[in-house]
């Protein structure tokens, strides 16, 4: 059986040994050969010395989820060798470092074991200990070039670009490639049936992680204030924002920054800074993860009640508590939707990949300002920190930010008395003013009871008047949320599947496989909360609806039962929550089993 451009390579190493650059070199080489790829970094919450894996999936069909299969294991970590061997799919391959004797106890008849003396070869070639460690990684890339027909010219070009400033490094890297390559050529039957072949599926595409794309979204949306407290897996979002701003947001004359990033003392402060900046008229955001959302809650409720625009990026990781900081989940959906005490509800945007991180980051600022409320962008570690192939991002230069109802100086000049919380337009959204504009715009922002004029109140009716008006605004918000994406099956069906965020790739692939077996499902990918009419329509028109969640408690299923009229008995929860990105096999297996059982019954 030959598997051309349809395979999974998994590399098991120890973190802190520099394998990341070798792995991205490998993935980029496949990408440049025109083959759709995705890379998933499965790393520990640790800086050095613990096991780490990198999974590269090449798929000519363009599938981007984990498949649950491993065709080529590069087992560079003796600690995890047994586990890594066990994970290889029958008929697959495993490369091990034959510089040392292999543990004979660990053997499998159905897996091809390929021993390459990587350490011995590089030790002979390079004197420096650090260089030896790094080059061992590059050498396995060389071996894979021979074994899997990966274009060495492409690899060479990539190395030349990476080390443009240090040509010496190009040579030593190429040498290591050569070592691995030649050994494989000489000792194995190259190329293997599992191999790459040039195609043209990646033209006009780029490889990017979701946090970088979200950061670009913030930059292009015109965000000027970012406040944060470092937390995995959101840190790289602010790192990227800073990097891009440094390049593209400087005063051309003075080089001064046209942005202000504050590394806050904690997430409470980060949230407060975002509110202060939003209140003062800037587009402001904070990237964080679950524990940060918990700390920010008091301010989130404040922003809801006082109607201050703010954008919160929650790059979800595994909870509860510290959980597993370097593993992925969709476990903060409920926490975000209802964050803070009292009756609060917040718009939540649900990007499925880096392209949507970019798009929805911009949407988030427009919604936050036009609705005058905190808006969440709920990404996750899988989207945020892994490399995804997406169509090149484009920007419409005619775009102008939706600043919402802000009274400017001219408008304020005509007004004698401005009332902050008056619903003058009937859409539940009052007008606001920002400091520094005009004395007539002055008002007092308070989280304590206030009436429609902005005055302090403990009056029952006056209090209720304002929170009821917030419900009118919520309905306005509902109508403005990005619509879900409906994918109809080729044949009419009463079965449906609902998913969101990073489950999209796995669902798409599973549905293709199910359809090939005659099992049809319509697919609705939810992109936002509050739910639009299209979601009600989908729930009404399907009898059996699978709801895919990457959390233990089926949070989207809960949210649907709470916020729509759906009969909960029609919903079947598919849940995956061990911290690994959801594999397509899991969805395929569960849907198939249940639909088959029902067909029999």
């Amino acid at each position: 059986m030959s598997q051309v451009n349809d395979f999974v390579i998994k590399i098991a190493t120890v973190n802190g040994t520099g394998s990341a650059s070798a792995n991205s070199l490998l993935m980029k080489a496949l990408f440049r050969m025109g083959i759709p790829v995705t890379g998933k970094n499965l790393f520990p919450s640790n800086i050095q010395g613990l096991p780490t894996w990198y999974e590269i999936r090449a798929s000519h069909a363009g599938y981007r989820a984990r498949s649950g299969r491993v065709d080529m294991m590069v087992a560079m970590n003796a600690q995890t060798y047994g586990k890594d061997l066990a994970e290889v799919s029958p008929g697959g391959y495993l490369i091990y470092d034959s510089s040392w004797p292999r543990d004979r106890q660990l053997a499998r008849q159905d897996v091809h074991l390929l021993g390459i003396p990587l350490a011995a070869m590089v030790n002979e070639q390079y004197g420096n200990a650090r260089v030896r460690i790094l080059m061992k990684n590059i050498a396995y890339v060389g071996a894979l070039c021979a074994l899997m027909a990966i274009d060495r010219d492409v690899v060479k070009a990539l190395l030349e670009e990476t080390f443009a400033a240090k040509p010496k490094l190009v040579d030593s890297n190429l040498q290591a490639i050569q070592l691995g390559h030649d050994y494989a050529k000489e000792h194995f039957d190259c190329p293997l049936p599992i191999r790459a072949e040039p195609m043209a599926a990646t033209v006009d595409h780029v490889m990017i992680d979701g946090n970088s794309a979200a950061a670009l979204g913030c930059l292009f949306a015109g965000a000027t204030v970012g406040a944060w407290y470092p937390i995995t897996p959101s840190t790289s979002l602010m790192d990227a924002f800073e990097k891009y701003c440094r390049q593209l947001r400087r005063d051309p004359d003075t080089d001064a920054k046209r942005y202000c990033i504050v590394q806050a003392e904690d997430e409470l402060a980060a949230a407060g800074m975002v509110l202060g900046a939003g209140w003062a008229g800037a587009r402001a955001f904070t990237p964080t993860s679950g524990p940060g959302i918990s700390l920010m809650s008091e301010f989130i409720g404040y922003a809801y009640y006082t109607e201050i625009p703010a954008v919160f990026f929650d790059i979800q990781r595994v909870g509860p508590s510290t959980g597993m900081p370097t593993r992925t989940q969709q476990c903060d959906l409920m926490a975000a939707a209802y964050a803070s005490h009292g009756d609060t509800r917040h718009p939540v945007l649900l990007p499925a990949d880096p392209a949507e991180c970019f798009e929805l980051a911009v949407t988030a600022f427009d919604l936050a300002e036009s609705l005058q409320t905190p808006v969440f962008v709920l990404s996750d570690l899988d989207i945020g920190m892994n490399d995804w192939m997406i169509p090149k991002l484009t920007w419409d230069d005619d775009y102008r930010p939706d600043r919402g109802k802000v009274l400017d100086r001219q408008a304020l000049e005509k007004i004698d008395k401005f009332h902050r919380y008056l619903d003058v337009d009937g859409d539940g959204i009052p007008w606001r003013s920002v400091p520094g504009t005009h004395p007539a715009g002055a008002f007092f922002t308070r989280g304590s009871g206030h009436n429609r004029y902005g005055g302090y109140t403990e009056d029952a009716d006056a209090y209720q008047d304002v929170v009821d008006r917030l419900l009118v605004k919520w309905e306005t918000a509902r109508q403005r949320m990005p619509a879900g994406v409906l994918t109809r099956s080729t044949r009419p069906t009463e079965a449906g599947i609902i998913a969101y965020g990073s489950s999209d790739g796995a669902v798409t692939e599973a549905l293709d496989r199910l359809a090939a077996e005659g099992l049809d499902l319509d697919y609705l990918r939810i992109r936002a909360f509050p739910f639009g009419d299209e979601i009600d329509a989908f729930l009404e028109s399907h009898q059996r609806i699978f709801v895919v969640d990457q959390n233990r408690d089926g949070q989207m299923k809960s949210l649907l039962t709470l916020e729509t009229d759906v009969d909960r008995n029609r919903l079947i929860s598919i849940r995956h929550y061990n911290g690994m990105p959801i594999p397509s096999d899991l969805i395929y297996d569960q849907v198939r089993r249940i639909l088959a059982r029902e067909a029999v019954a």
Partner: protein
Amino acid sequence: MTYIAKPRVYHSGLRENPLGLTIRDYEGGLSTLCAGCGHDSITTALVQACWELALKPEQVIKLSGIGCSSKTPAYFLSGSHGFNSVHGRMPAVATGALAANRDLVCIGISGDGDSLSIGFGQFAHAVRRNLNMLYIIENNGVYGLTKGQFSASADPGSKAKYGEINRNQSIDPVAAAITLGGSFAARAFSGDKDQLVPMIKAGLRHPGCAVIDVVSPCVTFNDHEGSTKSYAHTRSNSHQVVHVDFVPPAEPITARQTDGQQVPVRLHDGSTILLRKTDPDYEPTDRLTAMACLERHRRKREIVTGVLFMDTDLAEFHQIAGTSSGALTDLAFEDLNPGNDKLQALQQKLR
């Protein structure tokens, strides 16, 4: 949208400042604090100071946390934006607002509970970032609004209304601000307007975080014998080291005459403040002296007032950050958005 335009009513017979505004224009809503509350005196001093400085009300923001003290921004400068935030978090909101618009004049009002307990971290970080704001702590040694529990500034040995004795050490915000690397640390007494008004003016003009700890007796829960923050105790034990006068460049105000040496300090905006030492040995630009002075008086259970420390050369928040001059909120979208060409160019590296 529809708003009814109403003609503005002007007061007559009151003195106008260079903006043509009277002191009335700097007042706020009616105070709902207890009659005689020290916080109200601070409010009055703030009104006076802002009027004298002829601050444009719309250029001022007034922020606070939660507490009786934090209610007071509603009682001054009704022509300014106010932000009564959550308990202990005023500094974060101020940081964000000033990050967005550095041209705003920021007045932060807090209490000893608000800044020295729940918000101690945020207080510390506003000071060390040298955020350009006036940071007033209305210090009464108790949680007024929650009815008289000890705060972290209650002195060891002080007695609460119902007889309980505080045995914990107290936090002195002035000493804290100095050790945190603050650029302006002062103390006043709410009942001494002559000292407080010029000090507020100096704080408002100081290019950095000006912390003023104002001993502000709570008449309801902390103004009784045994309390070291009572009117009686403070009046008889307060010891003034430095007297501050403020002289705006346009219209010099005659300094109150006191004996002793003058220390003129020129501020970044070109104005000058004159520090008048009542204590000939005192040097307000030296941290060691300030700490020693605080400790010396603390041992004598005296409350030392005045500007204890100031350094106008310390880089403030935006200087440290390297932000462009002018408010970020004033930048046009074209100056913020790099455009599609740049986006395409940047993505060359992502292939």
